[in-house]
């Protein structure tokens, strides 16, 4: 009994010590985001205008969809470097279908197959790519880094092939409304983002699949011994991010009324940064969708704000890179502080 109560006392002490840091770590990204918004708002009064806010929201929504998928992937201790290329490929495929098989040029929409089939194509291509990558990673145990690095190159090449190196442009009104429309003043992309992010958050919290994702990322061997189908879980997350890349690709082409071969270039950086800034551990098992949303907003605000302050766009890359390192460094620091005694 005495040793037990002593252990309890020890535990209580440990809790007191970690609480402060853990709490700070939990809210640090949100605090940083609020500081950024206030800072940019003071620096430029147009920054806080409704128009600009909605503009940021639309921007964020597109790669935010990818970040939601990436959260699942990183929670399983995986990574997907191919998201930017896959987004471009899905968008290009949709555009190809919408314009009637690569007729290209403006005014070809009448000859195309319509937005429905185009959307199905984008989602289908994403699903297919996700299946293949997921199978390679889950079944053949090829490192996700390698599989998706290969995918990154393959999808970009396919995108260039389909578009013959150039863009495919000019879609019908419904198609365009996926990127440009609004419902009650809220941009359609943002509506998609909010719905899907909410569904994803609920999935993580309240479904068996969500639990399995955390478990596989937390300790793959233990997950296997606990009776979790690790292979199926991994397949699931890569398929999910593939489909989300399809949707994001479709929305992006709709917004631009054009599928660009260079769309989504270096998106993987933004997307991974969003997830990591949001507190998701690259080692898997720890992270939330809410964190990722804050991370994505942080990057969106940063990019938009820097543009508004007329700071050369090269600085975006430098600052985003910096923040990734600081965010992860801070996280490791906090973990070391809270005595990561396992």
């Amino acid at each position, binding site marked *: 009994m005495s040793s037990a109560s*002593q252990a309890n006392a*020890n*535990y209580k002490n440990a809790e007191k010590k970690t609480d402060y840091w853990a709490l700070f770590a939990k809210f640090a990204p949100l605090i940083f985001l609020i500081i950024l918004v206030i800072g940019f708002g003071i620096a430029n009064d147009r920054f806080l205008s409704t128009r600009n806010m909605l503009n940021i929201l639309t921007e964020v929504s597109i790669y935010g969809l990818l970040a939601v998928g990436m959260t699942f992937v990183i929670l399983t201790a995986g990574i997907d470097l191919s998201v930017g290329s896959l987004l471009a490929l899905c968008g290009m495929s949709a555009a190809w279908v919408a314009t009637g098989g690569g007729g290209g040029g403006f005014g070809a929409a009448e000859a195309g197959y319509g937005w429905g089939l185009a959307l199905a194509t984008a989602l289908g291509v994403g699903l297919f790519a996700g299946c293949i990558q997921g199978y390679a990673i889950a079944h053949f145990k090829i490192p996700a880094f390698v599989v998706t690095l290969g995918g990154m190159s393959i999808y970009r090449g396919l995108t260039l092939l389909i578009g013959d190196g150039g863009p495919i442009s000019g879609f019908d009104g419904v198609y365009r409304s996926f990127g440009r429309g609004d419902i009650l003043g809220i941009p359609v992309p943002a509506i998609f983002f909010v719905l899907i992010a909410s569904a994803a958050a609920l999935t993580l919290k309240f479904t068996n699949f969500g639990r399995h994702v955390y478990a596989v990322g*937390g300790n793959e061997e233990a997950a296997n011994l606990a009776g979790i189908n690790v292979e199926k879980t991994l397949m699931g997350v890569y398929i999910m991010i593939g489909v989300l890349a399809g949707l994001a690709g479709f929305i992006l082409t709709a917004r631009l009324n054009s599928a660009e071969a260079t769309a989504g270039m270096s998106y993987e950086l933004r997307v991974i940064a969003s997830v990591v800034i949001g507190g998701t551990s690259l080692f898997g*098992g720890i992270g939330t969708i809410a964190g990722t949303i804050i991370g994505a907003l942080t990057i969106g605000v940063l990019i938009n704000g820097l543009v508004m302050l007329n700071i050369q766009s090269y600085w975006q890359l430098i600052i985003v890179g910096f923040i990734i390192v600081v965010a992860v460094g801070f996280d490791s620091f906090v973990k070391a502080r809270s005595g990561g005694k396992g």
Partner: protein
Amino acid sequence: MIKLKGIGKFFPGVVALDGVNLSVGKGEVHALLGENGAGKSTLLKILSGAQPADTGTIEFDGQVQHFHTPQDAQEAGIATIYQEFTLFPDMSIADNIFAGREVHSGGFFIDHSAMRKAAKAVTDKLGIEMNPATKVRDLSVGEQQLVEIARALTMDAKLIIMDEPTAALSRREIEQLQSIIADLKAEGVSVIIVTHRLNEVFECCDRYTILRDGQFITSGRVDDVDEDQIISMMVGRSMESLFERRASQAPGDVVLEIENLTNQSSLAAAAVVLKKISMTAAAGEIVGLAGLVGAGRTDLARTLFGAPLGTTGDIRINGEPVSIQNSLDAIKAGIALVPEDRKAQGLFLDLSCKHNVSVSNLGRISSNGFINEKAENALVDSYIDALNVRLANKDQPIKTLSGGNQQKLLLARWMATNPKVLIVDEPTRGVDIGAKVEVHRLLFEMAKSGVAVIVISSELPEILSVSDRIYTFCEGRLTGEFHQTEANEEQLMRYMSPSILSQTGASEDLTLAVAN
């Protein structure tokens, strides 16, 4: 040569070593003996500089030493051969032997040919007929062990410490090693050997020191004692008094039957191949599996929980043959496994206590893939209460709990699956005495409720106190079966040591030595 006096090492809540003395003369081969958990490993870590001692003095070669790092100890002339390999698998034999002490020519470039020549000289001496340029990855486990030994030999150490050096060696390799030890002795090098194979103590050691529960027990000349005396000194009586033997109860119907279970190849993690294991476990019965590390107990458990390719033999649950390819099959068949390494194989350290318990029970608390939180909370709360788990909040990460409470939650996870067979591998490793008693109580309750419980433990007092029936394992074989009333530690120890295999003229078909 080396003299340790009053060495103590204290971890929070645990006394690992207390007042341990050890002295080894020049050119002496000294056996350090004790059961698992007696403190041998801790003592070796102190000797090799991996951990500082909290109390006591180390006198080496006439000087009082304070080793802060393994480098300190190496420079002083102590080489350690660890039980776990510390080799670089993708480097050559020669590079491994000289890792960190590379031979240079002209001060900058590594002189590969000189290193290979030197490596060849020492490996020849050890009887490894291998090109020193061969990658270590391509060697057998025994050969890798010899490379470790070769590395220590080239350090020109005055004292060589060997932790279970023969665990992975073949008979021929062991003889080779023993002749090397004899050479070292002749050269005036001192050797400390930790081993579970007592016959080796008599074959090559001069003196012995026995530790038990972190205490120094005795020390003396090997010639003055026999194997039985050493065993009784190692085992002692202190632990036994802690655990009351459970009154044996009449077992119910046989739940688990294993017949001729054999692995063609070893599991990836271990070098043990099961050979024709046949055993049973009945409802309400606690069956203990005793054996040295690597005897095949854990491998049997893992085979029951997802057989590796090339496993033959039959497994029946309640008389029905079952095919178990993976852990899902095992769980469906009603088998639960609380694995040996709690942190690596059992827990999700960053996840909450609640999620750690419910993870294997999601099917019962969810519908259409959605978890019913109320049902989940009720399930987890009921086990936290029943198992008397001490925690502030079931949503706190499980890593913040003590080992004993972690283990209870892991047991809760598997108890909640309503298993027919519950296998617990080292159920009380690293938990304090109080929690140990509670874990045992839980196992008794599980058995009482009609579950066939299989307990694997390296601690014989534990096996003896909880089991109704005990099987002994050695080198992948089942060597004996004992009923609780007939078993004692000396006897089990004898049936766990490799000499039993030669005594009974064991071949592939070992006749079971049944004690009743």
